[in-house]
């Protein structure tokens, strides 16, 4: 027996030793720790579409163009570019003397290979969806000139090139098939390790061609527990917490050791109404639900004030958002009158599918809509189950008797096409897109097509204004609110900035020693 006890003790000690995570580092290194709400999905920027994964990857990768702190596009790996008159041919002059983290040279050949990965249907990269339909050919005209032919005129192409999915990856690493677990780009930080249960570590790339970062290391960690995110900021386990749950925002603002960084969010929250279901097929009914929604109360109660009531399908980010009065101010009487006009004066019962963490939205609406006789039957679903239910096709939704879905959409706010087309275009009916209520308007579809290929800013703005008016009038959704992006930062950490929609840039952040 004694022997067994000793053996067991040996095993225990071994396990304890194995279970002590040592983070590589060196004395005096400044490490900036960033805690986010979910783990990264891949180290391959093109094989994911998650905001919080993009944040982890962006310090290590660069695209042809890059979005700066002024939120405008600047030269990245391309120094300048031209576009042909028909908008179909883009020519990029590439930066010279740039090396990938694995030591190989960056040139037009490697840039082209990076785009070929996106175009490769067999590879089936998860983040290729936006770019693949646009790219016709991508080739190196000479070692420092990249030529891209598009399938159609798409003036917002440069915006797409600044997204994580369009980052240029090392072709040698990609050929090895390692990119999903080992990042290799040209960025100011380079990949050190991805300990999947704990962190991603990045260190300064000494061979970086541009400005060197101030901190030596970036360490990305994650926790889904809201209160843990808050505590981690207080204890110093994290220097930056993204996104900070709104419930803690006020206490962070009042704490002299911490700072709250806020930004215009681009996440629009909404309830998609199944316009094929009675009585939601009547526009009056949909408008009635809109009038019966007290958006100010939602912002106050659910977002603790850190948000704006939605008044258009686009987030309130210039220049495309349609400014003007709220089309559906809270008005119970008007709502009741509209229901009466639609022939349902006593209201009706409607089901709503909502993800567990967003169930409070449905509960608030349940109370509000009860006042006009609409009984909301709430289905609280785990996210995987919700995805299945929300993206069902019209037939399956009918069988499921699903009347509405609570969801949100965030596209950064720079390209209205990415917000409007997936949610409202006829071609985007679920499961092909996120038009979850099967709304269809020929007029809107045409407008979106024209706007997407219109380069002239004023004309483009006018077209998108019209599109927003149509959506507002037809009310295929109850638009709820737009969240503000909230990030908690420790005092002494500066230079963190946000891109609307949850993107955080900490590459050139500074951290004072105390």
């Amino acid at each position: 027996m004694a022997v067994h006890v000793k053996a067991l003790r040996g095993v225990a000690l071994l396990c304890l030793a194995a279970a002590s995570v040592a983070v590589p580092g060196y004395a005096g290194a400044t490490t900036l720790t960033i805690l986010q709400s979910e783990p990264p999905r891949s180290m391959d920027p093109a094989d994911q579409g998650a905001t919080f994964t993009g944040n982890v990857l962006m310090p290590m990768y660069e695209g042809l163009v890059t979005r700066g702190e002024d939120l405008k596009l600047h030269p990245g790996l391309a120094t300048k570019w031209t576009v042909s008159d028909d908008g179909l041919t883009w020519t990029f002059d590439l930066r010279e003397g740039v090396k990938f983290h694995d030591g190989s040279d960056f040139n037009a050949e490697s840039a082209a290979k990076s785009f070929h990965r996106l175009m490769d249907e067999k590879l089936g990269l998860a983040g290729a969806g936006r770019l693949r339909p646009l790219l016709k050919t991508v080739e190196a005209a000479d070692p420092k000139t990249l030529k891209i032919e598009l399938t159609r005129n798409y003036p917002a192409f440069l915006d797409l090139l600044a997204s994580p999915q369009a980052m240029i990856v090392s072709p040698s690493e990609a050929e090895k098939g390692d990119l999903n677990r080992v990042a290799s780009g040209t960025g100011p930080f380079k990949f050190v390790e991805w300990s999947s249960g704990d962190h991603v570590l990045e260190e300064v790339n000494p061979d970086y061609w541009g400005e060197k970062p101030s901190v030596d290391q970036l360490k990305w960690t994650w926790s889904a527990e809201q209160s843990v995110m808050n505590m981690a900021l207080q204890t110093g386990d994290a220097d930056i917490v993204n996104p900070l749950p709104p419930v803690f925002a006020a206490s962070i603002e009042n704490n002299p050791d911490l700072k709250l960084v806020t930004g215009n969010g681009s996440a629009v929250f909404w309830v998609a109404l199944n316009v094929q279901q009675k009585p939601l097929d009547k526009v009056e009914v949909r408008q009635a639900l809109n009038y019966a929604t007290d958006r100010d109360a939602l912002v106050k109660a659910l977002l603790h004030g850190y948000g704006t009531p939605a008044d258009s399908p686009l987030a309130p980010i210039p220049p495309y958002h349609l400014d003007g009065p709220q089309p559906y101010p809270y008005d119970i009487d008007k709502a009741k009158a509209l229901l009466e006009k639609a022939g349902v004066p006593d209201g009706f019962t409607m089901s709503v599918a909502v993800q567990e963490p967003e169930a409070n939205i449905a509960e608030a609406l349940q109370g509000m809509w009860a006042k006009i006789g609409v009984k909301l039957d709430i289905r609280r679903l785990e996210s995987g189950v919700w995805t299945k239910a929300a993206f069902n096709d019209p037939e399956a939704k009918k069988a499921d008797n699903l009347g509405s879905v609570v969801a949100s959409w965030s596209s950064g706010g720079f390209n209205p096409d990415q917000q409007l087309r997936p949610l409202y275009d006829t071609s985007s009916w679920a499961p092909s897109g996120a038009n979850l209520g099967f709304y269809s308007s020929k007029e809107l579809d045409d407008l979106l097509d024209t706007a997407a290929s219109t380069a002239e800013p004023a004309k483009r703005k006018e077209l998108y204004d019209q599109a927003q008016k149509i959506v507002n009038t037809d009310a295929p959704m109850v638009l709820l609110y737009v969240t503000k992006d909230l990030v908690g930062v420790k005092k002494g950490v500066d230079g963190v900035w946000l891109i609307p929609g949850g993107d955080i840039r900490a590459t050139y952040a500074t951290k004072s020693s105390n």
Partner: protein
Amino acid sequence: MKTYIARKLLALPLIVLGVSLLVFLAIRMLPGDPARMMAGPEAPEAAVEAMRVRLGLGQPLFMQYFGFVVHAIQGDFGISIRSNLPVASEIANRFPYTFALALTSYAMAILIGVPAGMAAAVFRNRWPDQIVMLLAIAGASVANFWLALMAMNYFAVELHWLPLLGAGSWKHYILPTIALGTLPTALIARMTRSSMIEVLSQDFIRTARAKGLGSFAIYRKHALRNALIPIVTIVGLNFGSIMGGAVVTESVFNWPGIGRLLVDSVRYRDYPMIEGVTLLAVVSVVVVNFLAEMAIAAINPRIRLT
């Protein structure tokens, strides 16, 4: 005894095979489509279909299961859908953390629960007994995530005594151990108390007293040894709930073990990873129960396993 062990060992693969089938089918009955989750909400249906093929989900269920078993026997549990890492190596990296936390929790449960239960039995119906039983009821009733958050807030945020997240040093073990170990501590304290009370009323204890042995020697040598059997049983049976508790505790403390891995995997419908982690958990529960039975036989020569 030997035939008993042999029979148990032979049954093990059958149990594992049965459980693997249950797990395999249960996961696939969950609504939710890993291909859609991977491809993202904007992906056209064709892209989702391509992803389904890439993930090997296009084959009939039977073929998928058959492939899974054939590979699993060779130690290959497939590739994680989410991280693209081999499931086996990912679990091998993370299981030691969970195992270490289970050990420290059991250590806490035994080192605190047994003496506390003994004290309660010896001072039966007096104040030490009442305090221990009150704490034991509280400890058995409290939800471990609530306890975890309270302990984090007090010891890490307010007092700055202990680290909040991760598994870097011995200090990191303290709070998760408290969160995970409280329930077994309470159970063991209660079990020790009732089992000691029963033993202390028996004739051989009176005999020991009569021959002039000191109280402490009686409790330690005679009473405890006999009271140990139910305690070991609890330890064995409770291992399943330790594994279950690890899911919550590890998520709260960012503990890089298989509990947190399981939560992340379920969220993304990472079938191979869920299968691998669940199978490992089942096997370890079966093995620990088996070891507990062996230990009981070793402690009590009257028990003959046949």
